[in-house]
């Protein structure tokens, strides 16, 4: 019989492998569905793996103006996303070995640190377009952060903690909280945030059109291994955020709450199935909506903020 600590460590490793290997596949499936909706054949769903392996084989070049920070940033960011993979509830609803390291706010801070590093590295390149993207990304980030904080505060109200595992367990077991409008409004607010953070369509179109570029322009000067790591990191980020949305916010059911390796293995398939549904919704959004002009993004953000604030108002106005 294996000791419990060892099992937790094994599960942490399984979770890491699960996220790191399937994140590109999720993006590949998203691209494929989008193309199918537009009646095209589209690339293979494994296309992102081919892209990454090609980039890893290529030589890296650096602009002459950059410092070492530019070179090490992709590795740092990738490491941060790997750390987040170990601490979020993805295939289990009980904390794994590194679970107690951070709570929701800590996770949010690591996400913020990664994006800040990315922006600083983009400023370091002195490429006009990168700097344009950094300024856009920071002005959007400034306004999305209050939504995130309000969501965390409201989750603190629901669960009494800021621990994603506890929130998952409470929503899984309590119908009262699951169907309360507070929870529904928070989930809606997080969906707005998810669209902004994953660079989905009303905010950012996935093309090389520099007029609407936000996040893509931060990568412009990278090449070779560093570009591959940056891309892979952003796939992992999208995968993690989608998983948080599914496992904590909208559909916390079936996530195993007790230590049982077989259940966890079965849940991995269920989890990917849930991801496929979310990916399909995103593909529908990406093919039916058109991009906002940059100034209109702030209207979108303010609607997200309105949802988060309404959750709070609802909680206090109906507290008898």
């Amino acid at each position: 019989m294996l000791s419990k600590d060892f099992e937790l460590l094994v599960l942490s490793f399984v979770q890491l492998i699960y996220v790191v290997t399937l994140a590109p596949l999720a993006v590949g499936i998203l691209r494929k569905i989008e193309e199918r909706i537009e009646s095209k054949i589209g690339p293979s769903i494994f296309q992102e793996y081919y892209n990454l392996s090609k980039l890893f084989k290529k030589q890296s070049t650096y602009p002459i103006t950059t410092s070492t920070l530019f070179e090490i940033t992709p590795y740092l960011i990738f490491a941060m996303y790997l750390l987040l993979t170990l601490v979020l509830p993805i295939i289990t609803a009980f904390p794994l070995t590194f679970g107690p390291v951070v709570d929701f706010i800590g996770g949010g801070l690591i996400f913020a640190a990664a994006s800040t590093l990315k922006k600083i590295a983009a400023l370091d390149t002195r490429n006009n377009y990168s700097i344009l993207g950094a300024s856009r990304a920071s002005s959007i980030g400034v306004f999305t952060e209050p939504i995130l904080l309000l969501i965390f505060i409201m989750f603190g109200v629901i669960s009494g903690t800021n621990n994603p595992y506890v929130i998952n367990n409470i929503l899984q077991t309590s119908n009262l909280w699951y169907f309360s409008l507070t929870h529904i409004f928070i989930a809606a607010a997080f969906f707005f945030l998810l669209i902004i953070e994953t660079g989905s369509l009303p905010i950012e179109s996935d093309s090389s059109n520099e007029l609407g570029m936000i996040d893509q322009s931060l990568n412009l000067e990278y090449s070779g291994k560093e570009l591959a790591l940056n891309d892979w990191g952003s796939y992992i980020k999208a995968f993690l955020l989608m998983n948080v949305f599914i496992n904590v916010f909208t559909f916390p059911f079936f996530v195993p709450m007790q230590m049982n390796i077989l259940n966890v293995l079965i849940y991995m398939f269920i989890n990917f199935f849930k991801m496929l549904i979310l990916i399909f919704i995103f593909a529908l959004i990406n093919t039916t909506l058109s991009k906002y002009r940059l100034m209109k993004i702030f209207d979108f953000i303010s609607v997200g903020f309105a949802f988060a604030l309404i959750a709070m108002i609802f909680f206090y106005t109906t507290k008898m």
Partner: protein
Amino acid sequence: MQNNIFILVGFIQIILIVFMQWQSYISTTIKTFDLSSWILGIFLLAIGIINREPTLIILAILTILTRAIFIPRYLLKTIKKDIWRVRESKNPLGVSLSIIISICLALFSYGLYSIALSNSGSVLESIPITLMLQGAFLIISKSNAYNQLIGYLVMENSIFLFGYIFSGLPFIVEAGIVLDILGIVLVSSIIMRLRKENIDNEEELYG
């Protein structure tokens, strides 16, 4: 149970008003108002059937007929004649700011309730107060005559929700309000014809 449904309806109305603040196309705003009136009418109908109050049922049917069916269709029909009125072009406050203010009015009315009205009844009163303030804000934050008319109608809807909390208004008064609305819409559509609003071409290119 009925209070829970009331809360649900009230918050859906708040969300729909925020959505109206967001939209710049007038036809979307009218359709959103249509939806909110349907929700209100069905809510009143359900309450009337559950409590076996024939006056409430008649009132609900009148609400659905006038606000959910007649007024939106009439407005959508008239808007086709003035093609330059289909969009809100001059937003005096800016959309995001007006959304935030509209939501903060909910906080304000909750504060108002807890300071001034908390002795008078249930905490649910703050929801119709919110809707009324948001409707008034819709009027002052938009420059288009159609949006202003809809802001007024939203205020009327909130009075109906108030009527649910303070039950006991005579039927003739409430039915009179419903029929007044028709007159208001007709009169204001004449005023809209007289009012000169136009789009400045440069403003269309803003941003």
